[in-house]
């Protein structure tokens, strides 16, 4: 099996010609791809000035927004899908962001780095220091990632909130994780990708 990227996995869950909100949209790569390949329209929300400029250059609708202030500017169910890739862990209140995503979107897609990956566990176990890995390169004091979770943590939160798991997929780039991530995702996946609805 070829190792698909996060974006390829997300793409399969997005309906053609649908209306999308991308939280923490970066340089607009996902929205641009979805527009070109699936005729998807929508908006990206971003706070980083350089990424906003990149979105503008990419012809992607980008709105300068601090996601920690909520999504009150958007009405209920005004988007088919609300996407957030690799940004849940930088939110001040990830659980409230998730609530907001499921309020303004009929469905949502979330990706996050799995802190339960054995490499992070091994690092902490053997060195007794907060993990600094290829994927998570920050020191504990300067990291924007203030709310790490594991696959199991995330699923527990979804259960608590009665969020339906429509699909889930796991990504790992290195061996042996890549081959066995499906057996024990909480231990072997590097990135978790969830398709959710309320």
């Amino acid at each position, binding site marked *: 099996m070829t190792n698909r990227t996060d974006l390829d996995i997300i793409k399969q869950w997005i309906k053609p010609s649908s209306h999308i909100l991308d939280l923490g949209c970066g340089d607009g790569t996902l929205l641009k791809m979805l527009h070109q390949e699936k005729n998807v329209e929508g908006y990206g929300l971003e706070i980083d000035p350089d990424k906003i400029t990149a979105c503008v250059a990419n012809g992607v609708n980008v*709105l300068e927004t601090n996601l920690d202030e909520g999504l009150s*500017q958007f009405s209920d169910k005004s988007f088919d899908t609300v996407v957030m890739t690799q940004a849940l862990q930088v939110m001040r209140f990830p659980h409230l962001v998730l609530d907001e995503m499921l309020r303004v979107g009929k469905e949502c897609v979330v990706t996050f780095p799995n802190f339960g990956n054995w490499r992070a566990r091994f690092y902490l176990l053997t060195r007794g220091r907060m993990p600094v890995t290829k994927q998570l390169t920050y020191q504990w004091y300067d990291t924007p990632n203030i709310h790490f979770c594991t696959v199991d943590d995330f699923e527990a939160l979804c259960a608590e909130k009665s969020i339906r798991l429509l699909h889930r997929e796991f990504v790992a780039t290195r061996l042996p994780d890549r081959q066995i991530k499906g057996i024990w995702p909480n231990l072997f996946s590097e990135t978790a990708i969830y398709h959710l609805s309320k």
Partner: protein
Amino acid sequence: MPDVIPDNSVGIVTPQVIQFDDPLTLACGRTLDQYQLVIETYGELNADASNAILICHALSGHHHAAGYHSMEDKKPGWWDNHIGPGKPFDTNRFFVVCLNNLGGCHGSTGPTSINPQTGQPWGPDFPALRVRDWVESQVRLSDRLGIQQWAAIVGGSLGGMQVMRWSLEHPHRLRHAIIIASAMKLSAQNIAFNEIARNAIKSDPDFLDGHYLEHQALPRNGLGLARMIGHITYLSDEIMGDKFGRELRSGSFQRGQDTPIEFQVESYLHYQGDVFASAFDANTYLLMTKALDYFDLAREYNHDQVEAFRHAQCDFLVVSFSSDWRFAPERSREIVEALIAANKNVSYAAIQSNLGHDAFLLPNERYEQVLSAYLTRLDNEVAAP
């Protein structure tokens, strides 16, 4: 005076006066039988007239947006930072048009022009104008220039209101709307500031109920005071602190000294007032501030801004500045929210700046990057429609 014209300047420019003889019926019900508009253009219009950008000026602006009128000019046009070869409004790629609006005092027909019926200056009898009247006159200018559809219409503050009005009333005549530090309508506080400025002018004994020109008088003090009030609201507390603080221009607080004291900020405001009073017409100032006050984007769309914007066909870029309290970022966010609810293509940049409302006129790296990125994309569309 520029010793040498910089490479990224449009250089020496010459305004053109365009005469219109088709009567223009205004929102107030009165008609201007004929009028003229003074304009400047920079760059070349391409063969299919698809690379034209219209710049709408703000309250005290005019047609001279870029370049120099002569080597003796002290300063270039008011948006020279942004218009020129290699600048965001790149004159190597775009044909940029800027005009002095109707009712202005820099060459377009306005209160200082002669009323053909009386042979005297119009003065206070010049018809009241609304933003929509400016837009209608700009539509006629577009026709005259052979521009069926503008690549973009751009404006800050009162200029942004013209851009929004264009997008609703003439949706097929622009592809992009760039709205900078503007609002869908003024707040009560904003109207209040304008009313103080108008009162300052009207209280000047030389105002003579607006008929000062016939009596060779000028309400300089009143107009200067109006500008001083306005100027404070265009700056931020922070920039005034940085620029002037409590520095003294003259006098001293030393004990035993009785010399008069003048703060630097006082001297600066007086200078700004004096310069403005010698270059601007009081009746035009009254007219322009009223047009600002009267603007309400959705008045004729059931007061529903979303319904109003549903009429638009263009894409939007909205820009605000953090320390702008006259046209606060909140006002720009309201525009963006209405556009989202109307399902329009919109991008929004909230630029960090300590320069207050004036930031939209001044250099700012991020502001220029956002504009450049947007206009580069727009240029690509022109190249490959």
